[in-house]
Protein backbone atom coordinates (compact mmCIF):
# COMPACT_ATOMS: atom_id res chain seq x y z
CA UNK A 1 0.00 0.00 0.00
CA UNK A 2 2.84 2.38 0.78
CA UNK A 3 4.35 1.95 -2.71
CA UNK A 4 0.94 2.65 -4.08
CA UNK A 5 0.82 5.99 -2.28
CA UNK A 6 4.13 7.15 -3.68
CA UNK A 7 3.02 6.22 -7.16
CA UNK A 8 -0.25 8.04 -6.52
CA UNK A 9 1.47 11.30 -5.62
CA UNK A 10 3.29 11.23 -8.96
CA UNK A 11 0.20 10.71 -11.07
CA UNK A 12 -1.07 13.90 -12.73
CA UNK A 13 -4.14 15.63 -11.36
CA UNK A 14 -7.13 14.91 -13.62
CA UNK A 15 -9.78 16.98 -11.88
CA UNK A 16 -9.31 19.59 -9.22
CA UNK A 17 -12.06 21.54 -7.50
CA UNK A 18 -11.16 24.26 -5.04
CA UNK A 19 -13.39 26.33 -2.82
CA UNK A 20 -16.43 25.66 -5.02
CA UNK A 21 -19.51 27.63 -4.06
CA UNK A 22 -22.95 27.47 -5.60
CA UNK A 23 -26.12 29.33 -4.71
CA UNK A 24 -29.60 29.01 -6.12
CA UNK A 25 -31.01 32.46 -5.40
CA UNK A 26 -30.39 33.11 -1.71
CA UNK A 27 -29.99 29.41 -0.94
CA UNK A 28 -26.35 28.38 -0.74
CA UNK A 29 -26.08 24.74 -1.81
CA UNK A 30 -22.28 24.44 -1.82
CA UNK A 31 -20.28 26.43 0.69
CA UNK A 32 -16.72 26.04 -0.52
CA UNK A 33 -15.95 22.40 -1.29
CA UNK A 34 -12.72 20.98 -2.74
CA UNK A 35 -11.70 17.73 -4.37
CA UNK A 36 -8.65 16.37 -6.13
CA UNK A 37 -8.78 13.35 -8.41
CA UNK A 38 -5.50 12.11 -9.80
CA UNK A 39 -5.43 9.96 -12.91
CA UNK A 40 -6.76 6.53 -12.02
CA UNK A 41 -8.53 7.69 -8.85
CA UNK A 42 -12.08 6.70 -8.07
CA UNK A 43 -13.63 9.38 -5.87
CA UNK A 44 -17.05 8.66 -4.38
CA UNK A 45 -19.27 11.48 -3.15
CA UNK A 46 -21.93 10.42 -0.66
CA UNK A 47 -24.46 12.31 1.39
CA UNK A 48 -28.15 12.70 2.09
CA UNK A 49 -30.60 14.24 -0.34
CA UNK A 50 -30.11 17.99 -0.57
CA UNK A 51 -26.52 17.70 0.63
CA UNK A 52 -25.26 19.19 -2.65
CA UNK A 53 -23.49 16.09 -3.97
CA UNK A 54 -25.11 16.12 -7.42
CA UNK A 55 -24.67 19.88 -7.69
CA UNK A 56 -20.97 19.48 -6.91
CA UNK A 57 -20.57 16.92 -9.69
CA UNK A 58 -22.58 19.01 -12.17
CA UNK A 59 -20.44 22.07 -11.46
CA UNK A 60 -17.34 20.19 -12.63
CA UNK A 61 -18.53 20.28 -16.26
CA UNK A 62 -20.56 23.45 -15.74
CA UNK A 63 -23.97 21.91 -16.24
CA UNK A 64 -24.55 24.04 -13.18
CA UNK A 65 -22.80 27.39 -13.25
CA UNK A 66 -20.73 27.74 -10.07
CA UNK A 67 -21.05 30.89 -7.98
CA UNK A 68 -17.34 30.90 -7.19
CA UNK A 69 -14.23 28.80 -6.78
CA UNK A 70 -11.80 27.11 -9.13
CA UNK A 71 -12.19 24.12 -11.39
CA UNK A 72 -9.26 22.52 -13.22
CA UNK A 73 -9.66 19.75 -15.76
CA UNK A 74 -6.47 18.01 -16.85
CA UNK A 75 -4.45 20.81 -15.23
CA UNK A 76 -6.30 23.52 -17.16
CA UNK A 77 -8.42 25.99 -15.17
CA UNK A 78 -11.86 26.63 -16.64
CA UNK A 79 -12.00 30.32 -17.48
CA UNK A 80 -14.71 32.01 -15.43
CA UNK A 81 -15.57 35.47 -14.28
CA UNK A 82 -16.03 36.70 -10.72
CA UNK A 83 -19.57 35.35 -10.54
CA UNK A 84 -18.50 31.88 -11.66
CA UNK A 85 -19.93 32.05 -15.19
CA UNK A 86 -17.71 30.47 -17.86
CA UNK A 87 -16.14 33.09 -20.12
CA UNK A 88 -14.69 30.95 -22.90
CA UNK A 89 -17.35 28.80 -24.52
CA UNK A 90 -14.91 27.04 -26.85
CA UNK A 91 -12.55 26.15 -24.03
CA UNK A 92 -15.46 24.80 -21.99
CA UNK A 93 -16.70 22.72 -24.92
CA UNK A 94 -13.20 21.33 -25.47
CA UNK A 95 -12.79 20.42 -21.79
CA UNK A 96 -16.26 18.87 -21.68
CA UNK A 97 -15.19 16.58 -24.51
CA UNK A 98 -12.69 15.02 -22.11
CA UNK A 99 -15.37 14.21 -19.50
CA UNK A 100 -17.83 11.37 -19.95
CA UNK A 101 -20.99 12.07 -18.00
CA UNK A 102 -23.51 9.43 -16.96
CA UNK A 103 -26.86 10.64 -15.64
CA UNK A 104 -29.38 9.25 -13.21
CA UNK A 105 -32.09 9.18 -15.90
CA UNK A 106 -29.79 7.90 -18.70
CA UNK A 107 -30.66 10.74 -21.10
CA UNK A 108 -30.00 8.72 -24.22
CA UNK A 109 -31.22 10.57 -27.30
CA UNK A 110 -34.52 8.89 -28.01
CA UNK A 111 -34.66 9.73 -31.72
CA UNK A 112 -31.47 7.76 -32.39
CA UNK A 113 -30.63 4.08 -32.21
CA UNK A 114 -28.10 2.96 -29.63
CA UNK A 115 -25.32 2.92 -32.22
CA UNK A 116 -26.27 6.40 -33.46
CA UNK A 117 -26.16 7.61 -29.85
CA UNK A 118 -22.62 6.29 -29.50
CA UNK A 119 -21.22 7.81 -32.70
CA UNK A 120 -23.03 11.17 -32.49
CA UNK A 121 -20.36 13.13 -30.63
CA UNK A 122 -17.35 11.29 -32.12
CA UNK A 123 -18.59 11.98 -35.68
CA UNK A 124 -20.12 15.44 -35.35
CA UNK A 125 -17.95 17.00 -32.65
CA UNK A 126 -14.66 15.14 -32.57
CA UNK A 127 -14.67 14.60 -36.38
CA UNK A 128 -13.72 10.95 -36.11
CA UNK A 129 -14.20 9.14 -39.45
CA UNK A 130 -17.61 7.48 -39.37
CA UNK A 131 -16.34 3.95 -40.03
CA UNK A 132 -13.84 4.24 -37.22
CA UNK A 133 -16.45 5.66 -34.84
CA UNK A 134 -18.77 2.76 -35.62
CA UNK A 135 -16.00 0.25 -35.00
CA UNK A 136 -15.19 1.81 -31.63
CA UNK A 137 -18.89 1.99 -30.76
CA UNK A 138 -19.44 -1.69 -31.56
CA UNK A 139 -16.48 -2.70 -29.39
CA UNK A 140 -17.87 -0.62 -26.50
CA UNK A 141 -21.35 -2.08 -26.91
CA UNK A 142 -19.87 -5.56 -26.79
CA UNK A 143 -18.06 -4.59 -23.61
CA UNK A 144 -21.23 -3.51 -21.83
CA UNK A 145 -23.08 -6.56 -23.15
CA UNK A 146 -25.28 -4.78 -25.68
CA UNK A 147 -23.80 -5.98 -28.97
CA UNK A 148 -27.25 -7.21 -30.03
CA UNK A 149 -28.92 -3.88 -29.31
CA UNK A 150 -27.06 -1.52 -31.63
CA UNK A 151 -30.14 -0.90 -33.79
CA UNK A 152 -32.61 -0.65 -30.92
CA UNK A 153 -34.18 2.64 -29.86
CA UNK A 154 -33.70 3.51 -26.18
CA UNK A 155 -37.43 3.54 -25.39
CA UNK A 156 -37.60 -0.15 -26.22
CA UNK A 157 -34.87 -1.17 -23.76
CA UNK A 158 -34.87 -1.81 -20.01
CA UNK A 159 -33.48 0.80 -17.64
CA UNK A 160 -30.38 -1.29 -17.02
CA UNK A 161 -29.74 -1.65 -20.74
CA UNK A 162 -30.27 2.08 -21.27
CA UNK A 163 -27.83 2.95 -18.52
CA UNK A 164 -25.21 0.55 -19.89
CA UNK A 165 -25.69 2.11 -23.33
CA UNK A 166 -25.33 5.56 -21.75
CA UNK A 167 -22.04 4.49 -20.15
CA UNK A 168 -20.84 3.20 -23.53
CA UNK A 169 -21.88 6.54 -25.10
CA UNK A 170 -19.81 8.42 -22.51
CA UNK A 171 -16.83 6.11 -23.15
CA UNK A 172 -17.16 6.58 -26.90
CA UNK A 173 -15.79 10.13 -26.72
CA UNK A 174 -12.56 8.74 -25.24
CA UNK A 175 -12.87 10.68 -21.99
CA UNK A 176 -9.99 11.34 -19.61
CA UNK A 177 -12.39 11.04 -16.69
CA UNK A 178 -15.92 9.79 -16.06
CA UNK A 179 -18.57 11.55 -14.01
CA UNK A 180 -21.39 9.40 -12.63
CA UNK A 181 -24.44 11.17 -11.21
CA UNK A 182 -26.34 8.57 -9.17
CA UNK A 183 -26.19 6.09 -12.06
CA UNK A 184 -28.36 3.42 -10.38
CA UNK A 185 -30.92 5.56 -8.54
CA UNK A 186 -33.56 5.37 -11.28
CA UNK A 187 -33.24 1.62 -11.75
CA UNK A 188 -35.41 -1.21 -10.51
CA UNK A 189 -33.48 -3.11 -7.82
CA UNK A 190 -32.92 -6.18 -9.97
CA UNK A 191 -31.25 -4.06 -12.69
CA UNK A 192 -28.76 -2.29 -10.38
CA UNK A 193 -26.26 -5.14 -10.40
CA UNK A 194 -25.64 -5.19 -14.16
CA UNK A 195 -24.86 -1.45 -14.17
CA UNK A 196 -22.61 -1.62 -11.13
CA UNK A 197 -20.70 -4.49 -12.74
CA UNK A 198 -19.91 -2.28 -15.73
CA UNK A 199 -18.80 0.62 -13.50
CA UNK A 200 -16.70 -1.71 -11.40
CA UNK A 201 -14.92 -3.03 -14.50
CA UNK A 202 -14.10 0.57 -15.46
CA UNK A 203 -12.70 1.23 -12.00
CA UNK A 204 -10.63 -1.97 -12.20
CA UNK A 205 -9.00 -0.88 -15.46
CA UNK A 206 -7.80 2.30 -13.77
CA UNK A 207 -10.24 4.86 -15.15
CA UNK A 208 -10.45 8.18 -13.40
CA UNK A 209 -13.93 8.64 -12.10
CA UNK A 210 -16.05 10.70 -9.79
CA UNK A 211 -19.10 8.89 -8.60
CA UNK A 212 -22.10 10.33 -6.78
CA UNK A 213 -23.93 7.38 -5.34
CA UNK A 214 -26.36 5.99 -2.80
CA UNK A 215 -24.80 2.53 -3.06
CA UNK A 216 -22.63 2.58 0.06
CA UNK A 217 -21.41 -0.98 -0.28
CA UNK A 218 -20.34 -0.30 -3.85
CA UNK A 219 -18.62 2.98 -2.93
CA UNK A 220 -16.69 1.18 -0.23
CA UNK A 221 -15.53 -1.48 -2.69
CA UNK A 222 -14.49 0.63 -5.67
CA UNK A 223 -13.54 4.05 -4.31
CA UNK A 224 -10.02 5.18 -3.43
CA UNK A 225 -11.37 8.24 -1.70
CA UNK A 226 -14.78 8.99 -0.21
CA UNK A 227 -16.24 12.43 0.43
CA UNK A 228 -19.22 12.84 2.74
CA UNK A 229 -21.16 16.01 2.03
CA UNK A 230 -23.64 17.53 4.42
CA UNK A 231 -25.47 20.82 3.86
CA UNK A 232 -22.97 21.95 1.25
CA UNK A 233 -19.79 21.33 3.21
CA UNK A 234 -17.45 18.35 3.32
CA UNK A 235 -18.19 16.90 6.72
CA UNK A 236 -15.67 14.10 6.45
CA UNK A 237 -13.44 12.50 3.81
CA UNK A 238 -10.77 9.87 3.49
CA UNK A 239 -10.11 6.36 2.27
CA UNK A 240 -13.22 4.15 2.35
CA UNK A 241 -11.83 2.04 5.15
CA UNK A 242 -11.75 5.14 7.39
CA UNK A 243 -14.98 6.81 6.25
CA UNK A 244 -17.05 3.65 6.40
CA UNK A 245 -15.04 1.68 8.94
CA UNK A 246 -14.31 4.39 11.49
CA UNK A 247 -16.51 7.44 10.90
CA UNK A 248 -15.58 10.36 13.12
CA UNK A 249 -18.44 12.84 12.96
CA UNK A 250 -21.79 12.17 14.57
CA UNK A 251 -23.57 13.17 11.35
CA UNK A 252 -21.72 10.65 9.21
CA UNK A 253 -22.32 7.93 11.80
CA UNK A 254 -26.00 8.73 11.76
CA UNK A 255 -26.08 8.88 7.94
CA UNK A 256 -24.35 5.51 7.57
CA UNK A 257 -26.67 3.85 10.06
CA UNK A 258 -29.73 5.31 8.33
CA UNK A 259 -28.74 4.06 4.87
CA UNK A 260 -27.68 0.69 6.28
Amino acid at each position, binding site marked *: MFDDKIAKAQRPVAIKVEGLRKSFGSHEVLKGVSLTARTGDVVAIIGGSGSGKSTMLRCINFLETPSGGLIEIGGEAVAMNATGAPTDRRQLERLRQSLGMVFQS*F*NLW*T*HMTVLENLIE*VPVHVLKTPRAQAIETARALLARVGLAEKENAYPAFMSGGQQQRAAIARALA*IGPKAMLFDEPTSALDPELVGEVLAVIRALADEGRTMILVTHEMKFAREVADHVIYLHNGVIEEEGPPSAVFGAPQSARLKQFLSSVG
Partner: protein
Amino acid sequence: MADGSALSASLDLLAYSPPGWGANLLRGLGNTVLIALGAYGVGMFLGTLGAFGKLYGGPLMRDLLGLYTTMVRAIPELVLILILYFAVTDLVNQALLAMGYDRIQISGVAAGIMVLGVVQGAYATEVLRGAIQSVPAGQIEAARAMGMSPLLVARRITLPLMLPAAIPGMANLWMIVTKDTALLAVVGFNELVQESRQAAGTTKAFFTFFMAAGVLFLCMSLVSNQIFARIEAWANKGNKRGGI
Protein backbone atom coordinates in the same frame (compact mmCIF):
# COMPACT_ATOMS: atom_id res chain seq x y z
CA MET B 1 -84.69 14.33 -67.09
CA ALA B 2 -82.05 16.88 -67.94
CA ASP B 3 -79.48 15.25 -65.64
CA GLY B 4 -77.53 13.56 -68.39
CA SER B 5 -77.19 16.61 -70.52
CA ALA B 6 -76.41 18.89 -67.53
CA LEU B 7 -73.61 16.56 -66.43
CA SER B 8 -72.10 16.37 -69.88
CA ALA B 9 -72.35 20.16 -70.20
CA SER B 10 -70.49 20.52 -66.93
CA LEU B 11 -67.81 18.11 -68.05
CA ASP B 12 -67.47 20.04 -71.32
CA LEU B 13 -66.92 23.23 -69.32
CA LEU B 14 -64.21 21.49 -67.27
CA ALA B 15 -62.43 20.00 -70.28
CA TYR B 16 -58.71 20.65 -70.41
CA SER B 17 -58.57 22.40 -73.78
CA PRO B 18 -60.74 25.43 -74.79
CA PRO B 19 -63.60 26.02 -74.80
CA GLY B 20 -63.25 24.01 -71.59
CA TRP B 21 -61.71 25.81 -68.57
CA GLY B 22 -59.79 22.86 -67.13
CA ALA B 23 -56.39 24.23 -68.07
CA ASN B 24 -57.18 27.51 -66.30
CA LEU B 25 -58.27 25.70 -63.14
CA LEU B 26 -55.14 23.52 -63.14
CA ARG B 27 -52.96 26.60 -63.67
CA GLY B 28 -54.72 28.16 -60.68
CA LEU B 29 -54.13 24.99 -58.65
CA GLY B 30 -50.46 25.08 -59.63
CA ASN B 31 -50.17 28.68 -58.42
CA THR B 32 -51.97 27.82 -55.22
CA VAL B 33 -49.60 24.92 -54.49
CA LEU B 34 -46.57 27.02 -55.40
CA ILE B 35 -47.56 29.88 -53.08
CA ALA B 36 -48.60 27.53 -50.30
CA LEU B 37 -45.27 25.65 -50.47
CA GLY B 38 -43.27 28.88 -50.62
CA ALA B 39 -45.17 30.53 -47.78
CA TYR B 40 -44.97 27.37 -45.68
CA GLY B 41 -41.21 27.23 -46.20
CA VAL B 42 -40.79 30.90 -45.29
CA GLY B 43 -43.11 30.38 -42.32
CA MET B 44 -41.16 27.39 -41.04
CA PHE B 45 -37.89 29.28 -41.36
CA LEU B 46 -39.25 32.36 -39.56
CA GLY B 47 -41.00 30.14 -37.02
CA THR B 48 -37.84 28.20 -36.16
CA LEU B 49 -35.86 31.40 -35.68
CA GLY B 50 -38.76 32.96 -33.79
CA ALA B 51 -39.20 29.99 -31.47
CA PHE B 52 -35.50 29.77 -30.57
CA GLY B 53 -35.39 33.58 -30.26
CA LYS B 54 -38.36 33.63 -27.90
CA LEU B 55 -36.91 30.83 -25.76
CA TYR B 56 -33.23 31.69 -25.71
CA GLY B 57 -32.98 35.30 -26.95
CA GLY B 58 -32.33 38.44 -24.94
CA PRO B 59 -35.12 40.68 -23.57
CA LEU B 60 -35.18 42.95 -26.64
CA MET B 61 -35.40 40.04 -29.07
CA ARG B 62 -38.18 38.46 -27.01
CA ASP B 63 -40.14 41.73 -26.96
CA LEU B 64 -39.79 42.22 -30.72
CA LEU B 65 -40.86 38.65 -31.42
CA GLY B 66 -43.77 39.06 -29.01
CA LEU B 67 -44.87 42.15 -30.94
CA TYR B 68 -44.59 40.23 -34.23
CA THR B 69 -46.61 37.20 -33.15
CA THR B 70 -49.23 39.26 -31.33
CA MET B 71 -49.84 41.70 -34.17
CA VAL B 72 -49.83 39.20 -36.99
CA ARG B 73 -52.12 36.81 -35.16
CA ALA B 74 -54.50 39.59 -34.09
CA ILE B 75 -54.99 41.23 -37.50
CA PRO B 76 -57.17 39.44 -40.08
CA GLU B 77 -55.09 37.87 -42.84
CA LEU B 78 -57.06 39.79 -45.44
CA VAL B 79 -56.10 43.13 -43.89
CA LEU B 80 -52.48 42.02 -43.59
CA ILE B 81 -52.44 41.02 -47.22
CA LEU B 82 -53.78 44.40 -48.27
CA ILE B 83 -51.34 46.24 -46.00
CA LEU B 84 -48.31 44.22 -47.01
CA TYR B 85 -49.16 44.01 -50.69
CA PHE B 86 -50.12 47.63 -51.33
CA ALA B 87 -48.56 49.63 -48.50
CA VAL B 88 -45.24 47.81 -48.36
CA THR B 89 -44.85 47.77 -52.14
CA ASP B 90 -45.55 51.48 -52.15
CA LEU B 91 -43.03 52.16 -49.38
CA VAL B 92 -40.37 50.12 -51.15
CA ASN B 93 -40.98 51.99 -54.38
CA GLN B 94 -40.94 55.40 -52.71
CA ALA B 95 -37.65 54.49 -51.06
CA LEU B 96 -36.27 53.31 -54.40
CA LEU B 97 -37.39 56.50 -56.14
CA ALA B 98 -35.89 58.64 -53.38
CA MET B 99 -32.59 56.87 -53.88
CA GLY B 100 -32.77 57.46 -57.60
CA TYR B 101 -33.77 53.97 -58.71
CA ASP B 102 -36.72 52.97 -60.86
CA ARG B 103 -39.93 51.58 -59.43
CA ILE B 104 -40.02 47.82 -59.26
CA GLN B 105 -42.99 45.63 -60.02
CA ILE B 106 -43.29 42.97 -57.33
CA SER B 107 -44.52 39.73 -58.83
CA GLY B 108 -47.76 38.31 -57.52
CA VAL B 109 -46.13 35.01 -56.60
CA ALA B 110 -43.29 36.64 -54.66
CA ALA B 111 -45.66 38.99 -52.86
CA GLY B 112 -48.04 36.17 -52.03
CA ILE B 113 -45.25 33.99 -50.64
CA MET B 114 -43.88 36.88 -48.59
CA VAL B 115 -47.22 37.94 -47.16
CA LEU B 116 -48.50 34.48 -46.27
CA GLY B 117 -45.02 33.45 -45.12
CA VAL B 118 -44.95 36.28 -42.58
CA VAL B 119 -48.39 35.21 -41.33
CA GLN B 120 -47.38 31.55 -41.17
CA GLY B 121 -44.16 32.48 -39.38
CA ALA B 122 -46.08 34.03 -36.49
CA TYR B 123 -48.20 30.94 -35.95
CA ALA B 124 -45.26 28.58 -36.51
CA THR B 125 -43.25 30.48 -33.88
CA GLU B 126 -45.83 29.55 -31.28
CA VAL B 127 -46.27 25.95 -32.48
CA LEU B 128 -42.50 25.33 -32.50
CA ARG B 129 -41.93 27.14 -29.21
CA GLY B 130 -44.32 24.74 -27.53
CA ALA B 131 -42.69 21.78 -29.26
CA ILE B 132 -39.17 22.81 -28.22
CA GLN B 133 -40.35 23.07 -24.63
CA SER B 134 -41.59 19.50 -24.82
CA VAL B 135 -38.05 18.19 -25.42
CA PRO B 136 -36.78 16.50 -22.23
CA ALA B 137 -34.16 18.79 -20.66
CA GLY B 138 -31.95 15.82 -19.82
CA GLN B 139 -31.33 14.96 -23.45
CA ILE B 140 -30.20 18.52 -24.19
CA GLU B 141 -28.05 18.42 -21.06
CA ALA B 142 -26.39 15.19 -22.21
CA ALA B 143 -25.44 16.87 -25.49
CA ARG B 144 -24.04 19.95 -23.74
CA ALA B 145 -22.16 17.77 -21.25
CA MET B 146 -20.23 16.12 -24.09
CA GLY B 147 -19.12 19.42 -25.57
CA MET B 148 -21.64 20.03 -28.35
CA SER B 149 -21.94 23.67 -29.37
CA PRO B 150 -25.36 25.35 -28.95
CA LEU B 151 -25.93 25.36 -32.71
CA LEU B 152 -25.10 21.66 -33.01
CA VAL B 153 -27.37 20.85 -30.06
CA ALA B 154 -30.22 22.71 -31.77
CA ARG B 155 -29.68 21.00 -35.12
CA ARG B 156 -28.89 17.45 -34.05
CA ILE B 157 -30.83 17.09 -30.80
CA THR B 158 -33.52 19.71 -30.15
CA LEU B 159 -35.03 20.00 -33.63
CA PRO B 160 -35.44 16.27 -34.34
CA LEU B 161 -36.68 15.63 -30.80
CA MET B 162 -39.36 18.30 -31.00
CA LEU B 163 -40.79 16.97 -34.29
CA PRO B 164 -43.35 14.59 -32.77
CA ALA B 165 -44.85 17.48 -30.80
CA ALA B 166 -44.58 19.93 -33.69
CA ILE B 167 -46.04 17.91 -36.55
CA PRO B 168 -49.77 18.02 -35.66
CA GLY B 169 -49.63 21.80 -35.31
CA MET B 170 -47.48 22.21 -38.40
CA ALA B 171 -49.87 20.01 -40.42
CA ASN B 172 -52.68 22.34 -39.34
CA LEU B 173 -50.69 25.33 -40.54
CA TRP B 174 -50.19 23.68 -43.91
CA MET B 175 -53.95 23.14 -44.28
CA ILE B 176 -54.54 26.76 -43.35
CA VAL B 177 -51.99 28.15 -45.81
CA THR B 178 -53.38 26.16 -48.72
CA LYS B 179 -56.74 27.83 -48.10
CA ASP B 180 -55.30 31.26 -47.26
CA THR B 181 -53.94 31.42 -50.78
CA ALA B 182 -57.56 32.13 -51.79
CA LEU B 183 -57.26 35.50 -50.05
CA LEU B 184 -54.72 36.55 -52.66
CA ALA B 185 -57.62 36.79 -55.10
CA VAL B 186 -58.26 40.25 -53.61
CA VAL B 187 -54.98 41.50 -55.02
CA GLY B 188 -55.82 40.01 -58.38
CA PHE B 189 -53.57 37.01 -58.18
CA ASN B 190 -54.62 34.08 -60.35
CA GLU B 191 -54.76 31.26 -57.85
CA LEU B 192 -57.38 28.54 -57.89
CA VAL B 193 -60.30 30.54 -56.51
CA GLN B 194 -59.69 33.53 -58.78
CA GLU B 195 -59.48 31.26 -61.84
CA SER B 196 -62.70 29.53 -60.82
CA ARG B 197 -64.45 32.85 -60.33
CA GLN B 198 -63.39 34.08 -63.74
CA ALA B 199 -64.56 30.87 -65.36
CA ALA B 200 -67.84 30.97 -63.44
CA GLY B 201 -68.38 34.64 -64.24
CA THR B 202 -67.84 34.09 -67.93
CA THR B 203 -69.94 30.95 -68.30
CA LYS B 204 -72.45 31.62 -65.48
CA ALA B 205 -71.85 27.99 -64.40
CA PHE B 206 -71.16 29.00 -60.79
CA PHE B 207 -71.99 25.66 -59.21
CA THR B 208 -69.78 23.70 -61.60
CA PHE B 209 -66.67 25.78 -61.14
CA PHE B 210 -66.86 26.42 -57.41
CA MET B 211 -67.63 22.73 -56.88
CA ALA B 212 -64.60 21.87 -59.01
CA ALA B 213 -62.45 24.25 -56.94
CA GLY B 214 -63.75 22.66 -53.74
CA VAL B 215 -62.94 19.17 -55.01
CA LEU B 216 -59.41 20.26 -55.97
CA PHE B 217 -58.87 21.72 -52.47
CA LEU B 218 -60.17 18.47 -50.99
CA CYS B 219 -57.78 16.37 -53.10
CA MET B 220 -54.91 18.59 -52.05
CA SER B 221 -55.74 18.09 -48.38
CA LEU B 222 -56.16 14.33 -48.75
CA VAL B 223 -52.73 14.01 -50.35
CA SER B 224 -51.24 16.27 -47.68
CA ASN B 225 -52.75 14.16 -44.92
CA GLN B 226 -51.06 11.08 -46.31
CA ILE B 227 -47.72 12.84 -46.47
CA PHE B 228 -47.99 14.22 -42.94
CA ALA B 229 -49.00 10.80 -41.59
CA ARG B 230 -45.80 9.36 -43.05
CA ILE B 231 -43.65 12.16 -41.66
CA GLU B 232 -45.26 11.71 -38.26
CA ALA B 233 -44.60 7.97 -38.24
CA TRP B 234 -40.98 8.60 -39.22
CA ALA B 235 -40.48 11.27 -36.55
CA ASN B 236 -41.88 8.92 -33.92
CA LYS B 237 -39.70 5.96 -34.84
CA GLY B 238 -37.91 6.09 -31.48
CA ASN B 239 -41.11 6.45 -29.46
CA LYS B 240 -43.31 3.72 -28.09
CA ARG B 241 -46.93 3.64 -29.25
CA GLY B 242 -46.07 6.03 -32.10
CA GLY B 243 -46.59 9.17 -30.08
CA ILE B 244 -45.08 11.26 -27.35
